[in-house]
């Protein structure tokens, strides 16, 4: 440790603060102006500004007479005194001293002496401030020799100057006196605390006894400070038991420990020690530089020496950090030569300052420039070579491409990462990391619309070739499964979600993987495996899980393999009989079985099923006995057992408290069982004779029952105008639940007016159901009011989120998907969840929408029905299975889950903003236009497609085939009939281009109700 001159700084509580001293003078002039005017000077002990402060300025205190005025004879002297103090205030200490000398020479009074001492004090302060410490000390000694009575006032300054000139003796000698008064001792210790920098000088100060605690402490601190700043110091070195916490040197102890932690990398502990250092002490003056070192920043207000300290400790790391910041800023600008210059400079600095991160830095720069579409050569030049293509690089690249939105490419890169990572030993081929990666890739692929995924699978080979040129063409793109000489042998498993799930399931024992796999196969209909097969694998892998058994039962039920389905349900019941889904499954299966037998007009078999149904406790819940009775009624009708049918009818009437509800239920069940008879026609005619109140009561009773047993509710078309008028008048005291039920029931039959009025009454009421009413209002609006409809959905979503109604949020998402899929503005790239995110509303917008909807009581006019917008556009009337929806041109299996949302718009690569602005603008501008231009698929084509699909991907070649087809699929027959009806009403003949002999299916004759001869087929 070098030995700098022993210096002390001491004074007004904060070291020798000459500026503060001058300030005191200024304040003094203001406060005691009148007293100074008298020329009388008195000594005032200024209270210390901080602990142990020892400022003792003299205050001129005028010799006021009883009146407080200076004597008239001393007028000139008083003026001179004022001038002296003004000069001191202005900082002209030299001029003040000259005048004070003159004054004292003339007056030679106590007052003039005091003024002279004031002037001397100011002069000494000024000299010290200019580093003229020797001169200041000499002047102080001179003043003390001439005016010993001023020793008290000059004591503090004398000690300061002693410290500055290295006169340690003058500073610490008083401490050797055992009789030193406590006040003076505090002053001395304060001076040491604030001013002492050179511990070695204090340790060797001879004026203190050798075993004086201050000397031993200073010696220990000097050793420890040298040790801790020169090399890694152990705990024993910095323990410093010699320094008590009451010692004026205690702050040094904290500083030494802070520096030790700093070099050990214990930043938090370092900050804690820094916080315990008195900021006014000498060690406190390096606290800010240490904090700058911790933050690796030189932004703080430091002195030149402080900056130098930070730079010397951190080395060029600070420069590297600054360069990295500059490069980050450059990446936000358009690529230019400046960017390449920054890259080159940063690379060089990194090589010098922190070579450990050079490889990573180059890889990050490489990816950033790739995504910014920078030319290759300048980047390689700036980087000083090519980047290393290790697992880290591929992972980074895959993430970047994923964020960009090119999901199939991202999967390809993830596969590349997987291979390299396994080669590098980052994880094993059978590790959990691999399973996670497979699931992540599958998750990405699920976001791609199926048709685009197919294209991606086809184009993959081309993409592989493309990627070989990414900044490193030294090595070819060594796809692991590329068989030499045969590109066709590529295993593109990474582009097939079902294969990814299969691999993940093999690596990780997790039933949720099977569930995701099953859900995917169910919605996306992949080529490899059917949902049932996945469920089978699921059940094999997790024999204790009831869920796959239910799925298997459902699949078997669809195949009409009821016994097999029942076996699965039995197994599921053994595993999880408490699960409501399991408990309900048997009931649903038996209902389906009964309906099936009734459809096949096999009442005896249906009776057996109903007997089994009767044994179930679930069949006795709510209004289900009435439904079971309705099935039994159809059986009786099929057997022509009139008396039994009447008995059952009466029983149902009793159960449902009314004939209308009973008739509704019977007709609903009959339609489900495709049972048509004179009795059903009679019931249908008879239903139209009832009043609105009875109808509403029946709907409120039967609709929930039909929803419960999963059949469609029969609502006669003639009820629509009745209910519309009825709701138009008032809400008839229906509660919120009743309004919701009525509106839902109306929407299932396409009665949007009824739903509109019902939702309007619901909106007038506040409560948690408001979100549902808004959703209903949106659904009740015609397609021409698309914007208003979406506003309602947005408001409903916002309200649903606030009341945590996640089911409703999912329903809205489904509705949005149907909107985009079935209406004119089909956009396969837009996911429903994206829409929900975009539709986030502020409070004021939410209030506005609700108020608008409340005010708008009049139902909007229905748009004129276009021929293309025939009944088929009502999604409620259409089959919603994936096959049918795909045949109608709807998007299936895309964006149905939260995880399926595309992040293209929300997570852009940084450079994307400027590179792809045009692209996105173009997309955003073109989107509505494209939607407007895109016509809906004509329903005839949809029907044709459906007919072809149902007849085994071929056209029915004869009328007999078509008859058989329509008999097997009565829903299809109804659609054809409705279409022809509508065409007839609107004067459009869809077969006008055909001659009489060109109607190979005989559709006109069969369904247009204009049979050329003979009765038409009974319309179901």
């Amino acid at each position: 440790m070098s030995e700098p001159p022993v210096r002390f700084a001491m004074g007004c509580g904060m070291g020798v603060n000459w500026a503060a001293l001058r300030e005191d003078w200024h304040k003094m002039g203001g406060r005691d102006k009148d007293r100074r005017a008298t020329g009388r000077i008195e000594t005032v002990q200024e209270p210390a500004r901080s602990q142990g402060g020892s400022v003792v300025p003299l205050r001129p205190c005028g010799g006021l007479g009883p009146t407080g005025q200076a004597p008239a004879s001393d007028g000139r002297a008083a003026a001179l005194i004022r001038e002296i103090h003004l000069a001191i205030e202005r900082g002209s200490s030299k001029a003040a001293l000259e005048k004070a000398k003159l004054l004292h020479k003339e007056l030679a009074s106590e007052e003039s002496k005091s003024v002279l001492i004031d002037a001397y004090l100011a002069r000494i302060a000024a000299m010290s401030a200019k580093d003229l410490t020797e001169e200041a000390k000499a002047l102080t000694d001179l003043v003390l020799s001439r005016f010993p009575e001023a020793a008290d006032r000059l004591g503090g300054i004398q000690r300061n100057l002693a410290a500055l000139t290295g006169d340690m003796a003058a500073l610490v000698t008083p401490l050797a006196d055992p009789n030193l008064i406590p006040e003076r001792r505090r002053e001395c210790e304060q001076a040491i605390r604030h001013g002492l920098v050179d511990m070695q000088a204090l340790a060797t100060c001879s004026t203190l006894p050798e075993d004086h605690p201050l000397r031993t402490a200073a010696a220990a601190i000097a050793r420890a400070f040298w040790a801790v700043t020169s090399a890694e110091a152990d705990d024993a070195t910095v323990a410093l038991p010699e320094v008590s916490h009451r010692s004026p040197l205690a702050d040094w102890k904290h500083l030494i420990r802070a520096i030790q932690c700093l070099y050990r990398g214990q930043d938090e502990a370092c900050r804690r020690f820094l916080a315990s250092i008195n900021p006014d002490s000498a060690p406190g003056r390096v606290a800010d530089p240490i904090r700058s070192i911790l933050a690796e920043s030189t932004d703080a207000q430091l002195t030149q020496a402080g900056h130098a300290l930070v730079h010397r400790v951190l080395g060029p790391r600070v420069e590297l950090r600054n360069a990295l910041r500059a490069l980050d800023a450059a990446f936000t600008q358009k690529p230019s030569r400046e960017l390449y210059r920054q890259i080159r400079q940063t690379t060089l600095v990194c090589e010098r300052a922190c070579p450990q991160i050079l490889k990573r830095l180059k890889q990050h720069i490489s990816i950033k420039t790739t995504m910014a579409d920078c030319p290759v050569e300048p980047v390689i030049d700036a980087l000083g070579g090519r980047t290393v293509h290790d697992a880290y690089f591929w992972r980074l690249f895959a993430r970047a491409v994923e964020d960009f939105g090119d999901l199939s490419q991202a999967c390809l890169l993830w596969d590349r990462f997987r291979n390299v990572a396994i080669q590098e030993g980052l994880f094993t081929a059978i590790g959990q990391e691999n399973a996670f990666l497979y699931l992540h890739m599958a998750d990405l692929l699920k976001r791609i619309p199926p048709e685009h995924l197919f294209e991606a699978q086809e184009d993959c080979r081309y993409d592989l070739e493309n990627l070989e040129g990414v900044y490193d063409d030294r090595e070819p793109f060594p796809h692991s499964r590329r068989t030499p000489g045969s590109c066709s042998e590529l295993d593109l498993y990474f582009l097939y979600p079902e294969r990814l799930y299969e691999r993940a399931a093999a690596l990780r024992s997790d039933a949720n993987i099977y569930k995701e796999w099953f859900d995917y196969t169910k919605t996306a209909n992949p080529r490899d495996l059917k949902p049932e097969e996945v469920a089978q694998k699921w059940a094999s892998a997790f024999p204790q899980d009831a869920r796959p058994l239910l799925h298997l039962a459902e699949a078997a039920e669809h195949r009409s393999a009821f016994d097999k389905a029942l076996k699965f349900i039995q197994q599921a019941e053994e595993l999880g009989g408490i699960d409501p889904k399991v408990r309900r499954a048997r009931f649903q299966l038996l209902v389906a079985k009964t309906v099936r037998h009734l459809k096949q007009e096999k009442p005896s078999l249906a009776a057996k099923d109903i007997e089994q149904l009767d044994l179930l406790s679930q069949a006795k819940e709510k209004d289900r006995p009435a439904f079971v009775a309705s099935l039994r009624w159809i059986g009786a009708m099929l057997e022509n057992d009139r008396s039994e049918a009447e008995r059952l009818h009466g029983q149902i009437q009793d159960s449902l408290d009314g004939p209308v509800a009973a008739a509704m239920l019977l007709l609903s069940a009959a339609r489900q069982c495709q049972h048509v008879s004179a009795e059903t026609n009679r019931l249908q005619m008879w239903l139209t004779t009832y009043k609105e109140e009875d109808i509403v009561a029946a709907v409120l009773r039967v609709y929930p029952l039909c929803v419960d047993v999963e059949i469609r509710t029969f609502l006669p078309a003639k009820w629509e105008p009745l209910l519309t008028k009825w709701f138009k008048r008032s809400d008839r005291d229906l509660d919120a639940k009743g309004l919701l039920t009525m509106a839902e029931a109306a929407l299932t039959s396409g009665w949007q007016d009824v739903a509109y009025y019902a939702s309007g009454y619901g909106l007038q009421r506040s409560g948690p159901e408001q979100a549902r009413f808004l959703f209903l209002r949106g659904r009740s609006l015609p397609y021409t009011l698309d914007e208003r409809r979406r506003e309602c959905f947005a408001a409903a979503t916002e309200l649903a989120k606030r009341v945590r109604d996640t089911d409703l949020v999912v329903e809205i998402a489904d509705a949005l998907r149907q909107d985009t899929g079935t209406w004119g503005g089909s956009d396969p790239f837009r996911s429903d969840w994206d829409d929900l995110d975009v539709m986030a509303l502020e409070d004021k917008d939410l209030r506005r929408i609700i108020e608008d909807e409340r005010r708008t009581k009049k139902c909007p006019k229905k748009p004129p029905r276009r021929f293309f917008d025939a009944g088929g556009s009502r999604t409620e009337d259409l089959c919603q299975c994936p096959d049918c929806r795909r045949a109608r041109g709807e998007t299936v299996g895309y964006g149905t889950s939260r995880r399926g949302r595309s992040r293209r718009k929300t997570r852009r690569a940084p450079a994307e903003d400027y590179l792809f602005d045009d692209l996105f603008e173009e997309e955003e501008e073109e989107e509505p236009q494209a939607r407007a231009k895109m016509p809906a698929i004509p329903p005839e084509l949809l029907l044709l497609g459906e007919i072809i699909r149902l007849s085994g991907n071929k056209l029915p070649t004869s009328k007999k085939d078509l008859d058989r087809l329509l008999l097997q699929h009565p829903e299809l027959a109804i659609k054809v009939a409705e279409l022809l009806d509508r065409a007839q009403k609107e004067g459009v003949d869809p077969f006008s281009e055909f001659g009489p002999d060109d109607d190979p299916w005989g559709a006109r004759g069969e369904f247009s109700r204009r049979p050329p001869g003979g009765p038409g087929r009974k319309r179901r």
Partner: protein
Amino acid sequence: MNRTENQRSPWSILGVPPEADDEQIRAAYLRKVKEHPPDRSAAEFENIRDAYDQLKDPYRRARHLILGATPDMPLESLLEDAPRSRRFIGPDAWLATMKSERKETQK
């Protein structure tokens, strides 16, 4: 705790390479906990514990390994995982800073 400490990867907090297996991770965790006991450096201990929580489960570790790196992160954050190099420069620069700061205060 400052921003930089938050950005450190769990591997760098525990001082193990990304390919470290379960045993290595546990050993590193115990070593670090001894270095930073909770009574002396609570925040650092918390960081270590969080890092260990993230790495001890292979599946969570996989998540971190695969999704941890973000291409759009600031380049400056690369420094956080780099070993810190603070140079020993002896006492003179420190003492000079104390003296110069004192003069600044006086002025």
